[in-house]
């Protein structure tokens, strides 16, 4: 009676297992995979947990095996069965109290060592300091020693430790680039620290990991690692002030700059040398960024147009309101933003 459905279940289970394994291995398609660390900080965590997963796997197989074994072995075959009444076994019980305790103690020792290791503040000439501020719902990055401010895309040099200071402007967020480090919460009235480091150049994805309101899932981030030389170049290109477009050269961009002031953009956004708003992201080098609005949208004309038409429609709860811009004003603004290289 049970044969047929059981075979089907078995097939389904095998299929599922194979499927899980395949999806676990396809690492390059998983940009936020914690099992694929790309820097020493994340790798340290991974090295710590791998043996724990192994031990847990052994216990898992042991217990599931025992449950299945007793289910088959001791299944009642006749209603007259009178099993021996065992009330307990002190030796066995002491055994399975002490054995797990010893295993856990070993895990505990390694845990504590790693914990103190990752809590050290890095020092030395190669360390880059970054101040990360969480806002609803975007990230602000300030490099205090380099005089650079940017948003959502954090640029770092490879092979150097980044000393990250985490602050919040409103509610609790959590900064999490999974391939580079574990998350650390960003708490108002609290200064938290973390260290990240990337081995190779590349774009590492992450996102806010603490529920922070309506657009929590739209508060994403990227860490872009460059070779040290490229990083120097990036810094150099980001310290300059923006050039206000000349109406003679580019009429549309100049109109956009005027609209930027007239429509109130300037009261919220900073464009160095032109505007000094403090609510939204610094836009001085906006055109260099690949994404915008919490690393949600690709920085291209189509997405910018949709965004400028009605930001809250694109990103629920967006603090940037619908400014009732005309299509012409949008054209101008896009042209202006394109000049912010």
């Amino acid at each position, binding site marked *: 009676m049970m044969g047929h459905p059981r075979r089907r279940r078995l097939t389904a289970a095998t299929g599922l297992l194979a499927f899980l394994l395949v999806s676990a291995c396809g690492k390059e398609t998983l940009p936020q995979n914690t099992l694929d660390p790309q820097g020493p900080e994340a790798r340290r965590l991974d090295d710590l947990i791998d043996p724990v997963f192994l031990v847990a796997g052994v216990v898992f197989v042991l*217990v599931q095996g025992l449950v299945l074994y007793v289910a088959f072995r001791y299944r009642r075959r006749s209603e007259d069965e009178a099993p021996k009444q065992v009330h307990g076994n002190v030796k066995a019980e002491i055994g399975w109290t002490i054995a797990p305790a010893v295993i856990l103690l070993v895990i505990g020792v390694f845990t504590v060592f790693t914990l103190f290791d990752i809590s050290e503040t890095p020092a030395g000439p190669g360390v880059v300091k970054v101040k990360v501020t969480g806002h609803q719902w975007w990230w602000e990055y300030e490099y205090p020693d380099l005089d650079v401010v940017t948003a959502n895309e954090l640029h770092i040099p490879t092979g150097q430790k980044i000393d990250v200071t985490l602050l919040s402007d409103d509610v609790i967020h959590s900064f999490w680039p999974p391939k580079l480090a574990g998350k650390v919460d960003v708490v108002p009235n609290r200064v938290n620290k973390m260290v990240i480091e990337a081995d190779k150049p590349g774009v590492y994805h992450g996102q806010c990991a603490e529920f922070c309101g309506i657009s929590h899932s739209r508060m994403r981030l990227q860490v872009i690692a460059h070779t040290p030389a490229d990083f120097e170049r990036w810094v150099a290109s980001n310290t300059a002030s923006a050039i206000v477009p000349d109406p003679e050269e580019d009429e549309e961009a100049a109109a956009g700059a005027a609209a930027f002031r007239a429509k109130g953009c300037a009261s919220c956004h900073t464009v160095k040398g032109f505007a000094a708003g403090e609510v939204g992201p610094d836009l001085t080098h906006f055109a260099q960024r690949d994404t915008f609005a919490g690393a949600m949208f690709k920085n291209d004309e189509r997405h910018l147009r949709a965004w400028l038409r009605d930001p809250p429609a694109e990103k629920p709860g967006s603090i940037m309101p619908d400014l009732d811009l005309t299509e012409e004003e949008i054209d101008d603004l896009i042209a202006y933003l394109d000049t912010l290289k």
Partner: protein
Amino acid sequence: MATVLEPTVTPVPVVVDPGVLKRPKNPTGVWSWMTTVDHKRIGILYGVSAFVFFLLGGIEALLIRLQLAQPNGTILSADAYNQVFTMHGTTMIFLVVMPMSAAFFNYLAPLQIGARDVAFPRLNAFSYWTFLLGGIFIYSSFIFGGAPNGGWFGYAPQTSITYSPGHNIDYWVIGLLILGIASTVGAVNLIVTILNMRAPGMTLMKMPIFTWMTLISSFLILFAMPVITIALFLLMFDRNFGSNFFNPEAGGNPVLWQHLFWLFGHPEVYILILPAMGMVSEILPTFARKPLFGYPVMVISAVAIGFMGWGVWVHHMFAVGLGPVAISAFSISTMFIAVPTGVKIFNWIGTLWGGSLKLNTPMMFAMGFVAMFTIGGLSGVTHAVAPHDRQQTDTYYVVAHFHYVLFGGALFGIMGGIYYWWPKIFGWLLSDRIGKLNFWTWLIGFNMTFAPMHLLGLQGMPRRIDTYDESLGLDALNMVATVGSFVIAFSTCVFMYNVWHSKKHKVMAGPDPWDARTLEWATASPPPAYNFAEEPVVHSVDDFWHQKYSEDDEGRPVRRDSGTDPAEHDGAAANGSSGDEHADEGHGIHLPSPSYYPLVAAFGIFVLGYGMVYGRDAGVNYVGAGLGALILFVALYAWGMEPSAEPHDPDDDIPLLPDPEEEPALAAAGAAGALGAAPEGDGDAADSAGTEAEADAVTEAGTEPGTDAGTEPGTDAGTAPGTEPGTEPEGT
């Protein structure tokens, strides 16, 4: 039960004078349920209500899964999604698992210790009505402009008035405060019942293991609830009265909320899981025909968990940025709480080892519990590895973990408990054939839904997100989880069909259908209102089993002479069907009488709740809160003046009202006529339901014993459980 839930039928206007509400008399019908103080009926009410909330929380779960089935889901808006996931968590924890456990606590604990009722029957009714109205209160927010949307953990300052100005969070804060009252009062009641009312001979170490778990859970509730009460209280003051506890601009510390919340929140996990552990610890020995392996160790490990549960809360906060010393301490303590848990798992396997396992539905659910809960325990150990917890926390890995604990653990145990005790509660068995379909779909659906979430979390999917990008590569596993959630939904339908089908084709159970071990099986199914005709005397753990079996030289059970079978002795009158309503006449058992006041008092709290939610609105003020407080106060005063059991009153010799509709009329008539006649503050008669001496005192006070107070509760329990509650689940 939909009509019962309607708060408007409560006779509020007549509470002005405490003596006005005439004692409710109906033995059947809606009003008999609304005024009942019988722990068994209250247990059934808890169970049915929790099941309805389970369906609501389940619908929310399906909505979540539909939204996440594909990347960039558009089933729900971001705000609707936040409401749904918040309510899913809040519902499943506070309105499903806790009250479902309370259903078993209430129904079983007095039976297992050989008592006639709980220590404070009216307080018990009050707990239930406060819980139910609290649940309705929170759910009413969906109608009144938006449900809570700050997550079940309600982190400040996201939940402060600056970032959540609507009333959504107010409903959550006040609703949880109301539910906290219900749980705390219930816990006090159970603690007193278990510590004070055990049958002769039942020392603590001879108590059934489920009763032990009830006791430990109740202590945890007693001490954990006040902590979250204060957290909610501070948040309420911030929101309503402008205090600064969680206001960063005034220097407030958001981490304080987290400490208070998790200092409650972690013991809460054990409040949720210990009852299921207790159920499993009763089911496994029964169907293995072996005693629980290492009963004392099982008790001690549960007590150890109860204590250690207070020292691990910071593991919910490993990413908050506390220092390495604090994190190390809590990391180690969290690892070591796995030790008593592991002992339990091995002892359960020890119970099964060498037994004669009858693999029926309750047994399969119980064994499923052992297997699935183990997985939750193991992922719990990985959380304790604090450095790596920074990768795990706030991801779907954690979601997977606590669903393996609360679904794979608590809900598997509770389902086992439902199948196991159903025949005791209703007198007829649930179909084992359909039950097995229920189990296998439950097991497969559960694993399909939650096993992939381990990987999703490790692959970088955070919790509480309403959308994710397809570039994250998470779509396939999310789809599997969504399909799994519908398998669980199907399984729930199978369960409801089983109830309907088994009720239609009733197989009567008799007092002891499973050849079980504890005292509740010694009385009829369902048990009569007075539980036991004679107070049982206990000699050992699993006393009922030892009355049925002795052990031969090899330690194997030998059935004693059937002439002395205690099941037949006590259950003879019932003969496997519903209780005989006149069976108690010869015993002079006097039971507490039903009362309106618990319901009215709970209703006062309900009104007070709305008053607090809307009090801060311009022009509203706290008038509603004042009104609610007044109702509560008057009800409590009248309650205090009302004796817990009614002496016989000749004026009451009128035909019992079959129609609940007429009840308010009766109350109104009573308001006119019975002003001075109410037996106000008759303190001696108040102590009843117990020893002969007290019953005699009642007899003196009211002449003619038995006719009224004696038969009434008997008919209550005799007729109703088979009909009303049984029909509930299928209707919803």
